[in-house]
């Protein structure tokens, strides 16, 4: 009988935080299509972790050569599993590791991968995925065709759900791997330096994006931040340009923050930024584009020129004696 294979990610014996979200996405399809949800967990010495996974069944893909993640090793191992078991749908969470090997795995099976989908539904028996285009400005419905469908699910698109205590059965799959086919030699992960600023504990953050246009104009943002007693955060392009240090970057490759107040200034609201700040209690967005995706996550939206709004807002905050 066919099934949905959910490829889960673990690092150092811990499940990636996306695991319950992608399992929830799989269960939503499972209800519509009546297919069981089977999770695959790849690595070495991970059998205990497998027992804690909320799926109908868990397949532990184990091998000495899978101890450290490599794109070649994971592709070879999971490709053998897929060929042997023939799942109908293969789901991943759209993590950096998935970006690194899932397109390769799908291509090995001569299949496309529908990446970074925000939802999936069934229409006339076929799977239809929604994904964002133009950094979230538009959506597209993508029809999956063929016997084996590969797709990855965007972070935060599905809510992890409480499934209670599921009894799951665990089995082991041992792939045939040859050390020569693993061409990447990975070293241990590291952080660049101790971060001088820890935005994760900041109570107020004013974050600046490319709408600020030039480095000199950053003073407008600094003024507002100082009036509020807030830390300054930034979107990626601001740090890429060297206008602010990398450690002030908020988002999937930067810091994850949860202040009580987050003011996004001239930031479009790309998903890689939003994942880092959507946990803020109150979000204010200032952007001149009424269709900017950032308004989707904002509590208060100001659709205006930031160069006009910032000075007025700074003055108002100062007046209010905050």
């Amino acid at each position: 009988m066919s099934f949905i294979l959910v490829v889960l990610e673990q690092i150092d014996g811990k499940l990636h935080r996306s695991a319950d979200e992608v399992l929830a996405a799989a269960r939503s399809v499972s209800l519509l299509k009546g297919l069981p949800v089977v999770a695959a967990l790849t690595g070495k010495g991970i059998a205990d972790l497998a027992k804690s996974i909320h799926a109908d069944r868990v397949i532990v893909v184990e091998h000495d050569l899978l101890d450290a993640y490599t794109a070649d090793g994971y592709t070879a191992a999971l490709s053998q599993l897929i060929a042997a078991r023939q799942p109908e749908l293969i789901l991943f969470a759209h993590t950096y590791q998935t970006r690194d090997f899932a397109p390769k795995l799908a291509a090995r099976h001569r299949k496309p991968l529908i990446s970074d989908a925000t939802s999936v539904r069934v229409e006339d028996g076929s799977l239809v995925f929604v994904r964002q285009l133009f950094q979230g400005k538009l959506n597209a419905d993508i029809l999956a065709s063929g016997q084996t469908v590969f797709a990855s699910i965007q972070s935060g698109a599905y809510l992890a759900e409480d499934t209670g205590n599921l009894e799951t059965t665990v089995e082991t799959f041992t792939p045939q791997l040859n050390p020569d086919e693993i061409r990447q030699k990975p070293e241990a992960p590291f952080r660049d330096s101790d971060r001088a600023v820890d935005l994760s504990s900041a109570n107020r953050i004013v974050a600046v994006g490319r709408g600020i246009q030039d480095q000199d104009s950053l003073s407008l943002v600094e003024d507002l931040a100082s009036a509020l007693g807030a830390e300054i955060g930034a979107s990626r392009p601001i740090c890429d340009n060297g206008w602010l240090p990398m450690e002030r970057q908020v988002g999937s490759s930067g810091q994850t923050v949860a202040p009580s107040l987050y003011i996004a200034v001239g930031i479009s609201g790309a998903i890689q930024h939003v994942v880092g700040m959507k946990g803020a209690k109150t979000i204010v967005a200032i952007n001149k584009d009424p269709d900017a995706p950032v308004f989707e996550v904002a509590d208060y939206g100001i659709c205006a020129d930031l160069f006009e709004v910032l000075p007025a807002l700074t003055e108002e905050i100062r007046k209010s004696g905050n």
Partner: protein
Amino acid sequence: MKILVAIRQVPSRDSQLSVREDGVWVEEEDLSYEINEPDAYALEEALQLKEKQGGEVVVLCLGPESASEVILEALAKGADRAVHIEEEIASSLDSFSVAQILAKSIQEESPDLVLTGLQSDDMGSGQTGVIIAELIGYPHATIIMQTEVQSSSVRVKRELEDGWFQHVTMPLPALLTIQSGINTLRYANLMGIRKAKTKEVRQVSCDVSTLEEGTKTVRVYLPHRQKQTTMLEGDPAAIASQLVEKLKTEARVL
């Protein structure tokens, strides 16, 4: 060393997008284009590697006729020559199709190093480079923030999540997907712009009907807002006082 850089033309960042009549892509008529941002960084990385150790930088672009502008820009910045695979519907092709087309040209060039951007601003699938690597049999690594080319291998710094990184070494030839911010971009100077016009741009055609099946876009549309955002209106002073009031009394964060 021969380095090939895959560049994509994408609509300029402040483009006003509208859905095309057939509902499956955007109206392209009035758009202006630029080099996809991470691809500009990939090109810069290639130029810097060439300056360090010599060799050739070849730019590869699958795009409509209008893509000749971004190709010219890449040549003006210092690329030696270009291959333009002309296809009018290129921008709406899915990455599996794009990768199959690009892979064929890359195999003909057999470069020592292939650089792509990690993701396109328009399609946003973040896959093309990785699929190409599989199709041409090169080892690869993604989201690269630093490269060190050694005699027969390359050591790279890969970005992981939450501010973590990792070094990975692999043999050449190899393919890397480059992240924005890896280096500092240069501008084309006048000399470069003049020289660009004399450089070779090889035009190649492709046949999309021979490709293995990709994904099918059935509808493109404006997302509807899920969250109720309170929009504040008025002149700047009025907006500022409304916001401070709301932050104090409604949100209670001031």
